[in-house]
């Protein structure tokens, strides 16, 4: 890592600055949605369907309304009066806010109780009586495609099947030809089950409609407050909500990871309730509601094929995927990408031919779903290519590291145009893998594995060399519901040389109050401690598309640098005015302009700031501020190589992750300590799906894994001590060469662990195991291959 350009006092890029947001969190003085109490505030709780698919015969609120403190029971009929019973999803599908005819997944919202406190609201929910007429349930996405399957979306006129979309990328004919001509072809079915992001804070809001001023304020767990404001204005404009009188405030958010991007029915009902009643309404969901009804992730049934020469040169990749979206496509993808950025599936390899197709299908499950730190389906794409690469290695009897090295896009080929149309900005894959192998002691581990095998002990080494695609995104290709995916920063320097910087993104723990300050410090030389960063209040923050898919540093961070540079340009002119020279005579170093060849003649940024208000040049506007709306020219491509070492208990099948080495490359790094923190967290959220997490449905649509009893989050006992290292390959197009890193580890880790488990059993011919790799799955493989205790 290169030394920082700025001093520790200024604390620009490269410093591991202690976080500016921590003082409130360590004191328990964070301000999360459920901490908010407003005068006269009411509480909302939701009645939910026990059935996966059923007609609603009747809803009887009589008993509930008799409970002292229950003020109202809102149903679909209530909302239908205002045409608010259905709403658009972020993928331009539609979903119910509250049903008028039928429910389509277990735990679906059926009615809402408004009460004076949350205990009474809970009693109210128990007292609402709903009669259902069960309908046939569709949970198997393959069966959902059957012509005889019941059509689920009867609300869509003329819909005769359960298909949502067909998406494809690449040249099918050329790929088929390459397959036909290949020496070796391997194929593998893979299922990535439904999982849930389960941030420790669930979703919720306080909706506060001020009747007197006609203004709606919603404190909300949202990663994208501006988009929500615009959506509310468009969807509820007809009931009097006007965008200049809507304020969305994302206060402190206890983890987002994509789960707080969608607009959930609970928010809309709370807003409607507040508008109708004229009092603030708080809705905070329970954990079980969160797991069962909020947007899920994955649920991809993948069939992958990889073609190669017999000496291990990859020739072609072909993938067919069935995507189970639940009853509505409520995924938060950019609108032209119903399968997200799945076409990154050629990965780190120089694959000249590729074809990928994804078909989306409706089932009787909660709608979604890309909400789990996945950069728009990059987790699925990377799992697929890294798994099939190992399958190929096994087929060819080649070491998986060697196969990867042989096929990596070489550093000199960047910027690299992939067979599926992406221009990778920069990368050095061999260096990252070599570094990981050195740190883990790869050759020694292979020797240890051989010795252990001879004694009947099982250990595995798994590699994942991933390339991510983040920073959505260039306006030519990217929008969400039409809103282009630029992002923004507005900086204002005060007379005393301190700064205020507001951004269109919204941190949910990523440390923007610190890292964004460091960007400004780097560009202007104002100490990061003097840069006040704000996000999340749509009344003050410039318009942005929010924080998810690792886009903040690539877009808003870039906007911060660009705004700072605009300020620097003006500052130069003010400095020239103060120093009575031409701006061309001035040299910049962080924090000051100096006259070329006259080191004693300089002005600090603080002096310049003061002058901007007290002695600005005539003909120039006073003040020192700028705003930038940054439209990235391309996405960025962080990458890395991970190596997992696992030991398998032959008696129980339990998998223990002995070591996990992660070498990441996210380009230039703002705060190394924060980057490491992001990686540690991502690794835990990669281990979790690899070994523990799964939400499933029985044939009646009953959910299992709908509470923490069965939806298993790893504790500090299940996670190893993570070993991390970096390479640095800057992005050539980003203003300060950074790429984004928040999701790299969630993307790269699961295949490393899955590959390690398969590697432990490859000597008896095991080729694949689906995640989560439960002890029973492993035990069955051991039994089938004569390896159990």
């Amino acid at each position, binding site marked *: 890592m290169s030394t920082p350009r700025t001093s520790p006092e200024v604390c620009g890029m490269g410093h591991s600055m202690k976080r500016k947001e921590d003082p409130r969190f360590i004191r328990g003085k964070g301000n999360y949605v459920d901490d908010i109490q407003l005068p006269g505030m009411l509480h909302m709780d939701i009645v939910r369907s026990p059935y996966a698919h059923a007609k609603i015969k009747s809803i009887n609120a009589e008993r509930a309304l008799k409970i002292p403190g229950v003020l109202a029971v809102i149903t679909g009929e209530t909302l239908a009066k205002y045409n608010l019973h259905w709403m658009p999803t972020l993928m331009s599908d539609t979903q119910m806010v509250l049903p008028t005819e039928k429910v389509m997944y277990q735990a679906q919202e059926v009615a809402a109780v408004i009460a004076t406190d*949350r*205990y009474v609201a*809970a*009693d109210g929910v*128990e007292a609402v009586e709903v009669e259902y007429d069960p309908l046939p349930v569709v949970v198997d996405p393959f069966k959902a495609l059957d012509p005889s399957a019941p059509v689920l979306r009867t609300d869509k006129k003329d819909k005769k099947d359960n298909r949502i979309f067909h998406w494809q990328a690449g040249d099918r004919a050329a790929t088929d030809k390459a397959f036909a001509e290949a020496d070796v072809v391997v194929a593998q079915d893979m299922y990535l089950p439904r999982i849930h992001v389960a941030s420790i804070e669930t979703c919720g809001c306080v909706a506060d409609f001020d009747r007197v001023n006609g203004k709606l304020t919603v404190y909300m767990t949202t990663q994208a407050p501006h988009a929500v404001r615009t959506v509310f204005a468009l969807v509820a404009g007809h009931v009097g909500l006007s965008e200049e009188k809507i304020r969305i405030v994302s206060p402190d958010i206890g983890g987002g990871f994509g789960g707080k991007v969608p607009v959930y029915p609970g928010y809309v009902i709370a807003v409607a309730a507040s508008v109708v009643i004229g009092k603030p309404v708080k809705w905070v969901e*329970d*954990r079980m509601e969160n797991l069962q009804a909020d947007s899920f992730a994955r649920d991809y049934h993948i069939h992958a094929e990889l073609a190669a020469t017999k000496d291990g040169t990859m020739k072609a990749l072909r993938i067919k995927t069935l995507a189970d979206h639940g009853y509505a496509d409520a995924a938060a993808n950019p609108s032209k990408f119903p399968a997200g950025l799945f076409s990154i599936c050629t990965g780190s390899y120089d694959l000249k031919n590729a074809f990928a197709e994804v078909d989306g299908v409706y089932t009787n499950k909660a709608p979604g779903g890309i909400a789990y730190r996945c950069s728009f389906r990059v987790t699925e794409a990377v799992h697929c290519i890294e798994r099939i690469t190992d399958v190929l290695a096994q087929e060819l009897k080649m070491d998986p590291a060697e196969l990867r090295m042989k096929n990596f896009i070489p550093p000199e080929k960047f910027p690299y145009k992939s067979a599926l149309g992406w221009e990778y900005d920069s990368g050095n894959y061999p260096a990252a893998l070599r570094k990981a192998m050195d740190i883990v002691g790869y050759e020694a581990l292979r020797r240890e594995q051989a010795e252990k095998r001879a004694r009947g002990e099982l250990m595995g080494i798994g590699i994942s060399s991933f390339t991510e695609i983040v920073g959505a995104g260039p306006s030519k290709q990217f929008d969400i519901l039409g809103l282009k995916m630029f992002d923004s920063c507005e900086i204002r320097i005060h007379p005393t040389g301190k700064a205020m910087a507001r951004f269109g993104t919204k941190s949910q723990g990523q440390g923007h109050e610190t890292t964004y300050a460091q960007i400004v410090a780097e560009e202007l030389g104002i100490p990061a401690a003097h840069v006040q960063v704000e996000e999340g209040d749509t009344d003050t923050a410039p318009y942005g598309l929010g924080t998810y898919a690792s886009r903040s540093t690539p877009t808003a961070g870039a906007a911060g640098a660009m705004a700072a540079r605009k300020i620097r340009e003006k500052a130069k002119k003010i400095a020239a005015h103060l120093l009575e020279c031409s701006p061309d005579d001035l040299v910049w170093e962080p924090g000051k302009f100096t006259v070329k060849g006259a080191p004693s003649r300089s002005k600090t940024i603080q002096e310049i700031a003061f002058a901007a208000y007290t002695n600005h040049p005539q003909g120039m506007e006073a003040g020192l501020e700028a705003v930038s709306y940054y439209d990235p020219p391309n996405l960025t491509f962080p990458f890395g190589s991970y190596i997992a070492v696992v030991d398998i208990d032959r*008696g*129980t099948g*339990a998998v223990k992750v002995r070591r996990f080495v992660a070498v990441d490359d996210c380009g230039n790094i703002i705060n190394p300590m924060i980057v490491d923190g992001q990686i540690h967290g991502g690794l835990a959220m990669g281990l979790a799906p690899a070994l*523990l997490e799964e939400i499933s449905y029985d044939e009646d649509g009953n959910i*299992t*894994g709908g509470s923490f009893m*069965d939806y*298993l989050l*790893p*504790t500090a*006992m*299940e996670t190893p001590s993570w070993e991390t290292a970096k390479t640095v390959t800057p992005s050539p197009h980003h203003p300060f060469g950074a790429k984004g890193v928040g999701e790299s580890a969630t993307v790269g880790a699961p295949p490393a662990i899955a590959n390690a488990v398969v590697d432990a059993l490859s000597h008896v011919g095991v080729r694949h195991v689906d995640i989560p790799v*439960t*002890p*029973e799955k492993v*035990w*069955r493989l051991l039994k089938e291959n004569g390896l159990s*205790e």
Partner: protein
Amino acid sequence: MIPAAFDYHAPASLPEAIALLSQFGDSAKVISGGQSLLPLLKLRLGAAEHLVDIGRIAGLEYVREEGGSLRIGGRTRESVLERSEVVRARYPILLDTARVIADPLVRNRATVGGNLAHGDPANDHPATMLALRAEVVAFGQNGERTIPIDQFFTGLFATALARDEILTEIRIPAPPNRTGGAYVKLERKVGDYATAAAAAQVTLDGSGAFTQVGLALTNAGPMPLRSTAAEEFLKGRRATDDSIAEAARRAAEAASPTADRRGSVEYKREMARVLAGRALKKAVERAGGR
């Protein structure tokens, strides 16, 4: 996560508590640590109109050896059991068990008595107490009585405690020389109930043969399961890999686990075998036998 309304009573003495339980009958539940009961009430499963909290009754939390047995007060918290020197030194099977119940925070409230009285075959202490041949002391309207552990569990979530009875003490016979015990649990993650678990408490004679064997399984059927067939097989036999393996096989054969997310019936039964074997091996080691 809000319980339905109930009335709460905090009697200061056992007679007072018993009187309340007699008065309210079926509509009352005893709350001890509350770490099994409150989660149920919060999910509105298992209603209770009256909670009788025995937490104010003095003198129910202790761990001491007395009169040839280890006596544990019914309200002894798992964390207290974990930190007890006499348990660590002389009853390591209990330490093994306490350490894998839920998580450390829950163990600061959960009580040994509650763990038994709940009658849940998924709880960890039942199997251990079966292996230890413990006795349960109950106090009710008719005074105090002692219930051998083999008669204590009567069905799923059912015990021999009468409606008006409170579990006040657990007694475990002091171990003779060359005794060792172990509790081995397979769980998906820390804090989970057992996918399978086995408790083994054994005594060996000079030649390394079993003179006493206690073996029991957790979550292997509708009730905590004592593996009598396995115990009988081992009695008198020398402790060897083969004899232990056969005993474990017999223990698993008698198990009737239910399939759930932790595993299929086949897997759970196999794990009962593997863990019974491991628990026996460890118990034998601790008895100084191998």
